[in-house]
Each structure stands twice: as structure tokens, then as C-alpha cells.
């Protein structure tokens, strides 16, 4: 099983608020891998919208994206693309 982690600067204009958070959960849920987002030492489930919202991520903040599982590679690249994208 593969594990990938990397610090990412969030570039979506609204950070990870309702809409972007919802989209992130939709993407994350497509994969079998375990997906975690870590900010200031607190790690939450990337497939839970409530958990993501409670991180309070704004644009420009950096996050650690941790992906672990059989489809980690694929999940990681898609999530990274989404988080680092310049806009919705």
C-alpha cells in the first residue's frame, strides 16, 4: 500500500468553504484510499464535509494532504490538482 504526503497551498478563492469543500468530498469519495487533510497538527477525514469545514481553510493557507491506499497515486494527483487550482 502506498502512502503519499505533501504540503499544498490552497489557491481556490474561497479556501475550503461550502462549495469547494463539497467538491473536495465528492472527489475524495471516488477513491478507496484513506484521505486525510492536516492543518496545524490537526488531521481530519477528507471524505467528511463537516470535518473539512471545521478546519477553516482559507485561500493561501497551507495544508498537508495525506493519501494512503491502493489508488493513492491517482487520488493524490486529482486532489492536488483541485486544491491547487487557481479557481473553481
Amino acid at each position, binding site marked *: 500500500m502506498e502512502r503519499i504526503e505533501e504540503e499544498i497551498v490552497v489557491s481556490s478563492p474561497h479556501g475550503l468553504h461550502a462549495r469547494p469543500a463539497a467538491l473536495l468530498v465528492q472527489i475524495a469519495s471516488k477513491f478507496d484510499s484513506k484521505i486525510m487533510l492536516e492543518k496545524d497538527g490537526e488531521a481530519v477525514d477528507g471524505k467528511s464535509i463537516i470535518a473539512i469545514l471545521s478546519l477553516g481553510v482559507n*485561500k493561501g493557507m497551507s495544508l498537508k494532504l495525506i493519501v494512503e491506499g491502493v489508488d493513492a497515486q491517482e487520488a493524490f494527483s486529482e486532489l492536488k490538482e483541485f486544491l491547487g487550482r487557481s479557481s473553481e
Partner: protein
Amino acid sequence: MNRLKGIAASGGVNIGKALLLGKEELSAPKIKISHEDISREIYRLEEALIETRKEISTLQKKILHDLGFDHAKVFEAHLLVLEDRVLIEDIIQQIKNKKVNVEYAFSQSIKKYIDTLLKLQDEYLRERVIDIEDVSRRVMRKFLKKEGTNLQELNEKVIIVAHDLAPSQTASLPKENILGFVTDVGGRTSHTTIIARSLGIPAVVGLESATRNIKTGDKLIIDGSEGVVFVNPPEKLIKEYHKKLSKITKDIKTIHISKVKAATKDKREVVVSANVELPEELSLAHEYGAEGVGLYRTEYIFLGRSDLPSEDEQYKAYSNVAKKMKPYSVIIRTIDIGGDKFLSQPQVPIEMSPFLGWRAIRFCLARPDVFKAQLRAILRASAEGNVKVMFPMISGVEELREAKKMLEECKKELKHEGVVFDEKISVGTMIEIPSAALTADALAKESDFFSIGTNDLIQYSLAVDRANEKVAYLYEPGHPAVLRLIKNVVEVAHQNNIWVGMCGEMAGEPLFAFLTLGFQLDEFSMPPPRVPRIKELIKNVNFQDAKTIAEHAIKLSTAKEVEKYLQDELKKILQDNFDKILLV
């Protein structure tokens, strides 16, 4: 009678009975369960989540049909809450470990998350809390097998009163039976406001204590243009408003919406354009036959958020307006709010007189980072349509020069970066401070156009705070001092070969539109629903008559005399059309 004052969120008036949408409790009593009951409670959880999901899907379809894709999108987050693994796991753990009933476990978990969100001090997320609360109430009702107030079956016309309205609630309201919205919280860009405007019904928001002062069944008058709600008003006032109401309804039916250019009988052409704030209003501007946007307010992009909008985000908003309005022009006004409105400005002291304080161009010149990002976005959008830029609250030529200097710097940067924009973009000065009106000759030499902001011009000229009820009677658009300033601005502009428009409320008031037509004003910009009326007025009068009448009006000594004179003269000219065109 109780008179409540709030924020005028969506214009129009209505009279009707109140329907209070109460805030149901989200808490539940704690009941100990036995080990054998655990699986039953978990089953109840699953059942409630599935049923709520069905309910929301139905709503989502309905809102998609009624209001469109953008509004339906908000439900995605709702649905995700229902299948949230962390939340569900948390509830199940509580049921198993603490041996409590599902209602209690659910309410505790939700409460925990809502509290976390509220602690984030983020305006945007705060607004999302109401979505989560809304989903939670729905789930809670399923546990208790209770039906919520079924608004779909509402069979009389009502004014909805609530603490706040969630998108999912407004979606389930039968539009044809809603006379207006009254809420405790909210602002000019909140969900309730946007929905009310897109439905074309009045709304007053930010009343703070509406839900405490109004009961279901109370008779209400809602005046969305003034931002006032009357609770159980006397017959006399009801009659007055009935008159207003029947006039408005009659007018809407009789005034023909004209899509051709406005011209007087003797062929003087003028531009009638729209004041626009929210993107939703653009289609209204088209619908009502506005020839472009005479005032595009950009404040909404900056408010209600914790960070500054990026240049790209602004560019998207501005170019969208420019594209949608093509080939008509769009006058983009740079931000016109106080420095204190920026959440990223933590240490701005509270000002004693904010109207005379650090706002609009004064704030922008002090914060080149904010100002230049906006100017660059406007310049980039100028490649996508007919865009003009306008600076608010200019008090003298030095401020205009400084603002233009920054614009030039932005142009240089963009050129250097190889970005396309309209190099000859028109630069306008908003005339809303008496000192600007009196030095219009100097400003005209360095501006491509003027736009007179009458609301502030009147307040500053007459030293009247319109929001102060004790002195509001002194706010008189027809005051000779105001008229002389306006006349001077138009004359000086024309002497310097620039055109001049008006984007304050006066432009949309038939009496004053007629008067300023006589002053030779070139452009009239107003809220979209006003456009047909002013176009109709212009079509029915002669420019030469307006000129003669304006020359006489300016010699009168009081606002009352001016208004009376204008009314009498217009009555003679319009005859049977007078009542139709003028809102009395």
C-alpha cells in the same frame, strides 16, 4: 402600531398577514437505553437520514426548476452532511458507548460541529452554519415523526417572518403566495435578499428583533424600498399603502417596456441605464430595457468575507458584466465603502462621523494594494466589452489626479505583461461632494465624464443624515441649493465637451428626471424596475418644454414650490398619462 426599521433589501410594498417561521429547538432530551436497544436506535438513525435525503432531493429538483442551477447547488453541501462519515460515526459511537437515544446523540454531535464552525470567526462559514442547522432540523423532525410547517400547502398569501431563511427553506416556499420576506439578520448580499430580488418581491432584512415583535397572523405592511415594516398598522396607513400598491400594480401592467433608445418628442436622445449591484440584477436590466449599466457597484465582492478578493476573481465578475451588457457600456465604480468594512483591517478605530471619514477613494488611495488589484481587474475586463471606470467621493482635483496616476501605473504594468485592455478606457468622476460640484470646471478638464451621485450630494449639501428620523424631513432633492449645484455641473461639463449622467435616486424620480432633462443631462441611471417609467416619460415630453420649465424652476425659493410647480406643469403636458408615469 409598531414601526420596525431594517435594511431595504428588495424594493416594493405589500400588505398582508405574517407567517412566523419559528426556530425549532435542535436539542433533545437524554434518555438512557439498554444494550438491546442499540441496534434499534442505529436503525432509526439510518431511516431518518434516508428520509431526509429523499426530502432534500425533491426540494433540490424543485429549486432547480424554479430558480435555476446556481441556487440548486447549495444543496450539495446539505446532502453531504447527511452522509458524512465522521458525523455518523460520532453519533453511532455515542449511542453504543454512552447508551443514549438517537435524538440526543444526534443533537450533541451536531452541536459540537456547529460550535467549532462558529469559533472560526469566519463570516462565510457562519452563514453556512444555518445550512447545517436546517438539515439537522429536518433530521430531527424525522426522529420525532413530526411534520414541519408544510409551506407547500400554504393556501393564503403571507409575509414570511423568520430569524433567517436557509436556501432550502426559500426553495420550498410557494412563490405565488409569498408577499414578502422579513428577517432578523441578513444584509444586502445575503441569501434572502438575492432570492427576494430574483422573485421580485419586497424584503426587509437585518431588523434584529422582528421575530420577537411579530406574531403569526399580525397584519403587516412591508415597504422594501424604505426598509420599513409596520406591525398592525392603523386603517389610515393601510389605505395609504393600498393606494400605493394598486398604483404600482397598475403601472407595471400599463407601462410598456421599451427596448429602443429613449428620445423626447422633439428628438433629443438620452441614455436610460441601470444601477446594478448583484449579478442577478443584470438580467433585470436587460428585461426592463436599460441601455447599459450607469453604475455598477463593486462593494458586494468585498463584503462578508475574511480575505480580499483576488484580482482574478474581480476580473471574472467585471468581465461577466461587460460581456453580458455588450454592446452597451458598463460604468464600474471603484469601491465605495469605509475602511472599517474590511475584515482584513483589524485596527480601524470606530469613526465619529463615518460619512466624513476614511472611505471610498480616501481608503483606496491609502491602500494601493487593494486599489490596484481592482483597477487591474477593471482594465483587464475592458478588453471584454465597453467598460468605463469611475471614482467615488472625489472632493477635489488632487484626488482625481492621484487615482488616475495609479490607473496609469496599472496600465503600464499590464502592457509590460502583454495583457490586453482598452487603452483609451473612459475615466469618470462621481460628483457627490459639494466641493466637487463647485470645482467641476477643474475636474472636467481631467475627466472623460461625470456622474452625479445625488443621494450623497443632497446629504452633504444640506448637512442631513437621512437615516436620522428627526432630521430626515430636511432631505429634499428639490432644494434650490441642490438644483443649482446640479445645473452648474451639467453646464460646466458641456463647456468642457464631456457628457454627464446621474446615478442617484433623483434620476429615477419622474419629476426630477424631467427637471434634469431640462438642465440637459445626458444619462439617467436607476434601479432596473424604474427604467420603463422614465423612458415612457421622456417619450411623452418635449426637450424644449423641459428646458423652459427648468429655467423657471431654478428661480423658485423652496423645494416645495419646486415640486408643486413641476407637478403642475407635468400634469399639463402628460395629461392622462400623468398618473400612469408618476408614482404619487
